[in-house]
C-alpha cells in the first residue's frame, strides 16, 4: 500500500516529463525573490533564487517599508511565453484567506511583481504565522497550469506599532453577560454580637443588684394586695399587657390592630391605676412610705 502510494507521484512525474506523452505544461525559470528595504539600492537587501516545485526552506521576511519583488520567466513547455494568468497567490492555511497579485508579464515571458505591506489587506497584517506564497501560471488551451508553493512569506511588523484592525459587524453570537450584583449587607462576626448582647443583658442583673444593695424591697405588697387587691392586680396586668401588645406589633400585628387594643388596655390602666395609686397615697398619708 505504502509502496503503491509512493510510486504514484513518480509515475505522474515520469508521465509529465515524457516528451509528447501529454500536453505541454506551464512553468518558469530564472525566478528570484528579493526584499529591498526602503532607501537601499537596487541590489541591497535580501535576494535569493528559487526553482519550480521546490519552495525555499526559510521564510522570506517582509518588514515595514520593504518592497518584495518576485521576477521570473514564464514558460510553456520549454519555450518562454507570456501566460494568460501569472499570479503571486498569498494563502493562509489557517484562516483560509487568499489574495493574488498579478505579475506584469512581457511577451517574452519575463514577469515581475512588486509588493509592499501597504498593498496587503489589513487582515493579512495581523497573522502571526508566515503565509504560503504560491506561483500560479496558466493559460487557455490544453497546457497544464502551474500552481505550487514558492516560499513562505512572513509579514513582520514593528511590535511598537499597533496592528491595524478592522471592525465590521457580523451577525453571530455575542459574549455572555452575567449581571454583577451589589454586595449584600453583611453582619459583624457572631461572637462579637453575642458579647455585646451579653453586656446589654447584664444591665438588668446589675440594676437589680444595685437596687438590692440600696435596700429596695417589696415589703408592702401583702398589705397593698390586702387593702386593694383588684386594682393592683389589674393595673400591673395592664402594664404587662401594653408590653405584650408592643411585642405583637413588632412581630405580626399592624397599626389598626394595635390601636383598639391600646385604647381598651389604656382605659383599664387609667381606672385601675387611679385606684391603685390611691392606695399608695393612703400608705403615704399613713406614714408608711
Amino acid at each position, binding site marked *: 500500500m505504502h509502496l503503491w502510494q509512493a510510486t504514484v507521484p513518480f509515475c505522474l512525474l515520469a508521465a509529465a516529463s515524457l516528451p509528447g506523452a501529454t500536453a505541454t505544461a506551464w512553468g518558469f525559470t530564472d525566478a528570484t525573490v528579493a526584499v529591498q528595504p526602503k532607501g537601499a539600492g537596487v541590489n541591497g537587501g535580501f535576494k535569493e533564487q528559487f526553482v519550480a516545485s521546490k519552495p525555499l526552506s526559510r521564510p522570506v521576511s517582509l518588514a515595514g517599508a520593504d518592497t518584495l519583488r518576485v521576477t521570473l520567466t514564464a514558460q510553456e513547455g520549454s519555450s518562454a511565453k507570456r501566460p494568460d494568468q501569472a499570479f503571486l497567490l498569498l494563502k493562509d492555511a489557517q484562516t483560509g484567506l*487568499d489574495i493574488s497579485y498579478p505579475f506584469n508579464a512581457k511577451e517574452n515571458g519575463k514577469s515581475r511583481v512588486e509588493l509592499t505591506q501597504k498593498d496587503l489587506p489589513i487582515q493579512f497584517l495581523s497573522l502571526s504565522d508566515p503565509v504560503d506564497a504560491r506561483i500560479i501560471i496558466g493559460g487557455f488551451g*490544453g497546457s497544464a497550469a502551474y500552481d505550487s508553493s514558492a516560499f513562505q512569506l512572513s509579514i513582520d511588523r514593528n511590535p511598537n506599532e499597533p496592528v491595524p484592525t478592522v471592525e465590521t459587524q457580523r451577525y453571530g*453570537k455575542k459574549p455572555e453577560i452575567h449581571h454583577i450584583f451589589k454586595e449584600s449587607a453583611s*453582619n459583624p462576626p457572631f461572637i462579637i454580637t453575642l458579647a455585646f448582647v451579653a453586656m446589654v443583658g447584664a*444591665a438588668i442583673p446589675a*440594676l437589680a443588684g444595685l437596687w438590692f444593695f440600696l*435596700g429596695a424591697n417589696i415589703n408592702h*405588697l401583702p398589705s397593698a394586695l390586702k387593702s386593694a387587691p383588684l386594682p393592683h392586680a389589674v393595673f400591673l396586668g395592664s402594664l404587662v399587657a401594653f408590653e405584650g401588645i408592643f411585642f405583637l406589633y413588632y412581630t405580626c400585628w399592624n397599626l389598626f390592630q394595635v390601636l383598639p387594643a391600646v385604647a381598651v388596655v389604656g382605659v383599664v390602666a387609667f381606672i385601675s391605676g387611679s385606684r391603685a395609686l390611691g392606695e399608695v397615697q393612703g400608705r403615704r398619708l399613713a406614714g408608711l*412610705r
Partner: protein
Amino acid sequence: MRWCLTLFICCFLAAVNALSSSGSRLLAVLEDTEQKDLYSTLWADLEARGYDVSFESPKSDQLALFKHGERAYDHLLILPPKSKGLGPSLTPKHILDFMNKDGNILLALSGKSATSSSISSLLLELDIHLSTDRSHVVVDHFNYDTLSAAEKHDVLVVQRPGPLRPDVKAFFDGEGVLALPRVAPHTLGYDSVLLSPILKSPATAYSYNPKEGTPAPEDILATGSQLNLVSAMQARNSARFTVLGSVEALEDQWFSAEVKTPNGKKTPTVNREFAKQLTAWAFKETGVLKVDKVEHRLATEGAELNPSIYRIKNETVYNIEISEYVYDKWVPFEVPGDDELQLEFTMLSPFHRLNLQPIHRTDTSTVFSAQFVTPDQHGIFSFRVNYKRPFFTAIEENHEVTVRHFAHDEYPRSWAITGGWVWIAGLWSVIGGFLAFVVVWLYSAPVVDKLKKSQ
C-alpha cells in the same frame, strides 16, 4: 358526501403544506418560450414542489409585480434578458419595493453577454458589485471542465459549498461537483451584515472580459475567493435576494452533464440538487424560523405565567419555543454547531446575556430555556431574543416587564439580622427594667426609718 368533502379539504391542505413557508406564486421573468424550454427540468421540479409558476416576458404589458398595491407574486425568478434592460415594470425601484413587501427574488446572471445597467444598479443598491464593464467571466485554469471548455476554461467545476463559518448552518452542502458555465462574478460590499456569499470562486480563479483578452494587472479588481459566484442578501424583513452568477447552470443540459477536471475523473454534476437547495432557500422553503411560544415566570412551583411585574433578585425562568421550516414541514430547530441562541435581559443595555439551552423537543419545535436572577436594579426591563444569523430568517422577540424594588414587608425582619440583636436586647432590657421599677416603686417599704431606728 361529507367525508368526501373532508377528504378533499385534507388533500387540499396537504397540497398547500408542501410548499414554501411564504406562498406559492412564483413569477419567472424570461424573454421567450425558446428560453423557457432550456430550463424545463427546473420548472418541473419547482412545480412538483408546489409552486404555481407563471411566465412573463420583461417586455410584456401585463407584467406587474403589484396589484392594487399588494404583491401579485410571492417570489420572483429573473433570468438575464437578451435585450438591454428589464423594461419599465421591473425597474430597480419596483424590485426593491417588492422586497420591502416581503417578496423573495432569485436573480440569475450570465457571462455570455453584458449584464444590463439596470440590473447592475439594482445590485449596487444592495452593495453587490459587478465588474465595471459588466461583461466579465470567471476562468480558472485548474478547475474547469475539459470536456466542454477545453480551450476557454470558462466552465468552472467546483465543490458544493460547506458552511460559511463554523457557527453558520450549511444549507447548500453535499457531495458531488457543480458545473458553472460562464459565470458573471460579483464582489460583495465589505460592511453589510445582510450579505453572505454562498459560493466563492476557487483561489486560483480570476475574471476577464472575453472580448478584450488577457487583462492587464491593473485591471484585475478581485481574484480567487473574492469573486463570488452565488451570493445572498437577506433584508431586515427577512426577504431574500439571491444572485446566481451562471444562469446556464440551471439548464437541463447541465443538470445531467458529466464533467472532468484536468486531473480528475469524469463525474456527473449535481446541479439539479444544488438548484433545488438554492431555490428552496431563496423562496423560503429552508432556513425559516418561527417562534411558537414565549413563556416567562418565577422559578417557584405554580408561579403565574408571563407576569407583567417582577421584583429585583427574583429567580426567573424564560422559555422560548422555536420551529424551523424544512421544505414542507416544521421541525424542531437546532442551533448550528458553534452558535448560541441568546437571551438578553435589558434596560437600555443588556444586564444579562445568557445562552439558552434546549430542554425539551416536541414533534415540530424545540423549547429553549434559561434561568437567572433578575438584577438588583429596578426599572422597565425586557426579555429579548434577537437571533439574526446568515441564511436564517430573523427572530426578534421583545417582552417588556417591570422590575420593582423590595416592598416594605419583603425585607428580612430585624431578628433575622444578627447585627441587630444588641439593639433588640437593649430594648427588652429597658422594658424589663421599667416593669421592675414600677413594682419596686409601688411596693417598696422605706429603709431610711430602719437606719434611724438602729441609731
